[in-house]
């Protein structure tokens, strides 16, 4: 018997009792519809959750200079100056797994406006890419300083909300001049509110300015050179004049090499260092890739021989990435349970109705056997009927589920994300539900004795 004729027969049989067929498929429609809706809503929310976790910096990487050690005493991360702004540019240029890079120069000093002053938690000298890295490009007011400002070391800055509150008391700071360590900076924008980070530190207590301006014009005590900069600790109190690029005298970039060392490794003199480089990977999956690419690149740029330790550290936000993946897998498992239960319920409904249908159509089965249907023909017929019912239910369910999630999107404004894999899974699952739950009734039908079946009233 040809396939299309089997399906035709099944459709004809189902058409004979459309109401019952519709009620039977209702179980599957609801089941598959629930799965699709849940998948779409769930995917949407988990994407939204992941996005918000990502905005906390989950796919950020922090490249910091390495450790200085002398005579068995190590000075901790950031105690040598090995990172340059050129390193940052090279990372962006040559590491494909990296989306954005921002060099950071940090300072901690007093900020003054009029009669008020404040010491912000962090003063960041960086590039506009910093806001991309931190997912912070939506400003509350004003606009971001440009790459040109960075090149020219222009004295412009962005303020965090805490500073606006403390210095301006709610007035708009745009266009006003503040003084950072006695150097005046023009406020061009106000950052949107970000709140505290996971450690409870106020992220809005921040000034962001071109790194060149901070590096060359503001004499803050750079956090990086704890040990080497002791000679220049007095610089923060001295008045800055604009002609001085390195106010208060420049500390040695590197510990003075011995004569032998200098002969062995001739190093170009680096004029500029940055305290850290912030990197953001293309996505959370690309983090390990990004780490290895950056490591290889920086080792090459810093001419580190094989076997020698790195002169930098790369830190990732393992904790946050873990949170991210665990929310995602929790969500998926939860949905899987819901899906399974509703489909089993739908399948039991199918089995129930198919059993009734087999009993009701005993006469028909007897007749079909009398005119030459073999047991396997009957089995196939009822099985195909069940599968057709389930597939039709699955198709309807996809529409219902999609419509439902769309409704949720429209009415409740929940984020949704269509999931093609869920649709494929729904089709496969509804077909297998049809086979699994249709088999017993079909088998029962095929085992009938034609004489008994014909006599059945």
């Amino acid at each position, binding site marked *: *018997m*040809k396939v299309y*004729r089997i399906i035709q*027969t099944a459709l*004809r049989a189902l*058409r*004979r*009792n459309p109401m019952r067929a519709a009620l039977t498929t209702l179980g599957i429609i609801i089941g598959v519809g629930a799965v699709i809706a849940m998948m779409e809503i769930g995917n949407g929310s988990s994407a939204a959750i992941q996005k918000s976790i990502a905005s906390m910096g989950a796919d950020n990487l922090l490249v910091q200079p390495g450790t200085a050690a002398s005579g068995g005493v190590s000075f901790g991360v950031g105690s040598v100056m090995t990172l340059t702004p050129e390193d940052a540019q090279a990372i962006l240029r040559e590491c494909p797994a990296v989306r954005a890079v921002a060099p950071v120069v940090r300072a901690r000093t007093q900020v003054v406006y009029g009669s008020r002053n404040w010491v912000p938690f962090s003063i960041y000298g960086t590039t506009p890419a910093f806001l991309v890295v931190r997912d912070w490009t939506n400003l509350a007011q004003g606009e971001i300083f440009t790459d040109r400002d960075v090149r020219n070391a222009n004295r412009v800055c962005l303020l965090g909300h805490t500073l606006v509150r403390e210095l301006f008391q709610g007035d708009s700071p745009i266009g006003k001049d503040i003084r950072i360590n006695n150097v005046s900076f023009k406020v061009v924008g106000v950052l949107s509110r970000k709140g505290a980070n996971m450690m409870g530190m106020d992220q809005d207590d921040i000034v962001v300015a071109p790194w060149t301006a901070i590096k060359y014009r503001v004499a803050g005590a750079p956090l990086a050179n704890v040990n080497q900069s002791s000679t220049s600790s007095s610089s923060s109190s001295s008045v800055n004049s604009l002609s001085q690029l390195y106010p208060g005298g420049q500390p040695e970039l590197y510990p003075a090499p011995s004569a032998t060392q200098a002969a062995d490794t001739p190093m170009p003199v680096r004029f500029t260092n940055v305290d850290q480089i912030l990197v953001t990977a293309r996505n959370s999956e690309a983090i390990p890739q990004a780490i290895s690419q950056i490591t290889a690149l920086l080792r090459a740029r810093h001419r580190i021989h094989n076997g020698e330790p790195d002169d930098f550290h790369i830190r990732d936000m393992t904790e946050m990435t873990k949170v991210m993946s665990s929310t995602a897998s929790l969500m998926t498992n939860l949905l899987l349970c819901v899906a399974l239960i509703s489909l089993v319920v739908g399948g039991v409904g199918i089995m129930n109705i198919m059993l009734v249908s087999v009993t009701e159509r005993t*006469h*028909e089965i*007897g*007749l*079909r*056997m*009398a*005119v*030459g*249907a*073999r*047991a*396997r*023909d009957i089995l196939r017929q009822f099985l195909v009927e069940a599968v057709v019912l389930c597939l039709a239910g699955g198709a309807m369910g996809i529409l219902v589920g999609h419509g439902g999630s769309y409704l949720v999107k429209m009415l409740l404004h929940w984020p949704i994300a269509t999931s093609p894999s869920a649709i494929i899974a729904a089709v496969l699952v509804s077909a297998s539900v049809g086979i699994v739950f249709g088999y017993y009734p079909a088998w029962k039908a095929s085992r009938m004795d*034609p*004489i008994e079946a*014909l006599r059945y009233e």
Partner: protein
Amino acid sequence: MQFIELRNIYKTYHIGDIDIPVLREVSLNVARGELVALMGTSGSGKSTLMNILGCLDRPTSGEYWLDGQEVSRRSADERALLRNRTVGFVFQSFNLLPRTSALENVMMPLAYARENLSDRQARRRSAELLERVGLGDRLDHLPSQLSGGQQQRVAIARSLINRPAILFADEPTGNLDSHTSEEILQMFKQLNAEEGITIVLVTHDAAVARLARRMIRIHDGVIESGAFVPGSNPAGSQQAVSQSAAGAQAIEGGT
């Protein structure tokens, strides 16, 4: 050898520990192209006999030769194939599929046929058969829209769709009034005469049985008369000869 030959068929039903013999030492034959009536009161075993003849059931013991083949020990699938190819059934209660058009009812057995007809061929053949039974203008009617006689005609058309060599009609007029009964019976007679289809009419009604040239009477699971084709003398069965003679007498007496 005749078209149908039964030799010493026994059929016993086991209900619990009790054996109920339904057919006892039944031997009979039917020639190709014959129109035979199988007569008996209810409970006489005629339905069981017809089920065995129609390959729906298997005898407990004995031989059944159909068209030169021993079929009593065939498997269920092989018997299904035989029913599909060589046998047609007409039932008392018509047994049409409800909510299915006359045409599709007639087409139904083709779904299990080994010859693969295209959909159009199948429709054409069914339509031709419905025309032959006088329902050419009712192809798309549902059984519920047809009278009893018309329904039985659809059933007859269905039984002919696979061009069977033999037709079993189990009380075909049992649910019909006398006028339509007559029409249906004439149709059987016509089919027998024009197509040469062997027909076995199972009935308890003497008036129906009178249509047939030969009457096989069964009572309490034993053939009373008319078991053999007149003139055919199966060797080694004296009893059969006498039965045959008795059957011939009965027919004469009836007409």
